[in-house]
């Protein structure tokens, strides 16, 4: 297990390095006139040139990249070219926003999809068909539409929850919960649809297995049969899907954060990429890739815990 983890960690580090390098090069290839974007349309060409020199954009890409890399490995990601805030403090402010809504969405979808999936598999019949139909609808409706509808009715018309903004947990746990509820639900809808189908399929397969029949014939309670034996064996494929959903939800957060006016990693990635705010974008990329690597690692560990066969090799 240790060598397995060490190998995964190492490949994770390589992945972070490769993707950040690619991003850096791509940023320089797009031809975005960053200095002009910063100083505005009425600035003279001299002002633009001065800004370029200030940002070091007049040096070769290799030199710029080396500067960034050597600073980044020391944990110094520089300052945003637009806001002037340090990238580290920006990310520290933004990461909890995105993590809150993504983990909230993931938790919601995990609970809902297990309940729906198991119910559909065990009960079958009408319930099964309704769940399947809902899954297809949930899959087809984009998360931004859910977000728009929720914001309009729940927040604006009924005034139950805040329409925009994020309150940190440390400031007020209840306000934090209120501020992430609608975004989390918006994100969860699509994920529930996909994962519930997966849970249902896996449960149906497992329930048909011989050992389930054997266990049943030995007089095990239905509850223990379902939760202890069937669900545990049906969980690995669902967990894999949930892990993939996490990556999908981080992507979906870009849109959902916009609708709810949240300043998370998603909206930062969007704005930094379009404005050419290289230091911020690089920071975002490193954090996002690291996050994905860590989540996959945790998933592997969880798989090993659920299924001893995985631990070998």
């Amino acid at each position, binding site marked *: 297990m240790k060598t397995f983890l060490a190998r995964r960690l190492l490949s994770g580090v390589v992945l972070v390095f490769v993707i950040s390098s690619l991003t850096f090069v791509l940023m320089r290839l797009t031809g975005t006139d960053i200095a002009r974007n910063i100083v505005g*349309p009425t600035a003279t060409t001299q002002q633009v040139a001065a800004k370029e020199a200030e940002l070091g954009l007049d040096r070769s890409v290799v030199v710029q990249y080396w500067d960034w890399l050597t600073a980044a490995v020391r944990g110094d990601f520089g300052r945003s070219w*637009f806001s002037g805030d340090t990238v580290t403090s920006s990310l520290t402010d933004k990461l909890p926003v995105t993590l809150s809504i993504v983990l909230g969405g993931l938790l919601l979808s995990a609970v809902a999809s297990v309940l729906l999936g198991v119910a559909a598999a065990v009960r079958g019949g009408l319930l099964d068909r309704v769940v399947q139909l809902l899954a297809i609808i949930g899959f087809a409706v984009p998360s931004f539409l859910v977000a728009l509808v929720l914001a309009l009715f729940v927040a604006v018309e009924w005034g139950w929850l805040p*329409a925009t903004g994020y309150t940190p947990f440390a400031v007020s746990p209840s306000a934090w919960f209120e501020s992430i509820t609608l975004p989390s639900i918006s994100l969860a809808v699509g994920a529930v649809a996909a994962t519930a189908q997966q849970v249902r399929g896996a449960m149906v397969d497992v329930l048909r297995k011989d050992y389930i029949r054997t266990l049943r014939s030995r007089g095990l309670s239905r509850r223990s049969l379902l939760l202890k034996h069937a669900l545990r064996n049906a969980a690995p494929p669902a967990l894999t899907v949930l892990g993939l959903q996490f990556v999908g939800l981080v992507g979906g957060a870009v849109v959902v954060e916009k609708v709810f006016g949240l300043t998370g990693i998603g909206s930062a990635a969007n704005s930094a990429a379009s404005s050419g705010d290289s230091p911020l974008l690089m920071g975002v990329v490193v954090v996002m890739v690291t996050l994905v690597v860590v989540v996959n690692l945790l998933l592997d560990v969880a798989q090993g815990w659920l299924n001893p066969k995985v631990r070998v090799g």
Partner: protein
Amino acid sequence: MRRRTFVGAGVVAILGGTAACSGESDTSSGNGASGGTLTLAPLVPSQPWDLKDAGLGNNTQYYQPVYDSLLRLDTKAEPIPNVATKWSYDSTGTVLTLTLRTGITFTDGAALDASAVKKNLEHTRTGANEAAGQLKGIKDVEVVGADTVKVTLSAPDPSFVANLGSVAGMLASPQAIDAGTLKDTPVGSGPYTLDKGATTNGSVYTFVRNEKYWNADEFPFDKIVLKPLADPTAILNALRSGQVDGALITTPKNVDAARSGGLNILRYQPGDVAGVYIWDRDGKISKPLGELKVRQAINHAFDRATLIKSVYGGLGEPTAQVFNPISTAYDASLNDTYPYDPAKAKSLLAEAGYPDGFSVDIPDVGPIFPEAQAAMVQYLGDIGIKCKLVTVPSTELLNQLLAGKFAISYFSLASFRSWDTITIQARPDSLWNLFKNSDPELTALIDSAQNSTGDSQNADFKEINTYLVDQAWNAPWAVVENSYATSRRVKVTAQAFTPVPGLYNFTPAG
């Protein structure tokens, strides 16, 4: 005209969202109500606190609470006393003497005196951003006495005094400038100070009263909160649910929704003129555009009244001139120069030697301005001018225009005081005179305007405007209108030449 995608919003903000002055006015808080919190949603994210890196326009909202400016601007954007109580030029129009209010201190205890002003002007102008750009003409700043500063310009700048009423004239603590701490914390002498404990960079900025501020009566609110929002839907939802008291509505279709949601709408002209800009007036890359009759034909091709409805959702005023209606150069009668007349346009094209029209490359601005682009292509197509769309990523649009890649395009340029408009686009070395067109007659008029004052200067401005319209330098469509929505808790008055009202303009309702 502002699109939902961030890229669009960003570029529009870049194209049209800068103003040459801060939104400050002479409105006295007449109703006497005070206290409470004012929460506004700026359209743009904040810029660095160090004024040398400060922009103008929408960005001004972040600087106004903490930094006081040398002068203030009334609602017509005319300079009025503030930190400086008196100012006057010498006979050459290049030496400006400012007399300062005494006894003001910055929040870190440093004195606001002549040397602090000198330090600020010299520091801000070292930057590369918009505020710094307005101070580039300074040759020297001299401390004459504790309360007197002499600013020497390298050439007369008819807009310089007014610029001191905006970010360019804002003052930061000289101690903080020397210590280099402005990157993270603003230290000024303004009506409020930044409450860092209640501030999360990028999402919430909280300002509380500066108890020592000399003019606190003008600022009725105890607390100012700024929550940047860029998405049109998020802006509308935040306003309608009462989370913010004021925000710019960026899509015309949201104006009605805001009004029916119980919000007040303030309509005003921020000082942008949009339409077809004919850049290549000498016919360098598109020969036909070098012909006056062709440019006049283009002007006759557009039904401006209809364009206001179809392109701007009714938010705009038809115009044929690049100077805005409250500038001294404006002449309403010039708008009748080129009535909508496709037949006349065709015959002008024929007279110029293009009876079958011609084709021209234009940058594809469809992703940012879909309605405007469709209208331009259609109206020009009607008179035989075929527009060939060339794909340009929105982040490179400014770059390619400035590099002179296109002879003509749809665009929106800032238009404030007459002199600003001339500086931005009419001088041979103006940045937005893309092909550096010039003419002895025009140059003489501009020289004359720069070196005169008062009525004779305004007469020169009008002549310059008339020249540009007669020569059909451009084919403007509309003076753009902004819509600012406020909750019923606050009142706001419009401010000339700025995309959003300034802090001075807000008072509690009732």
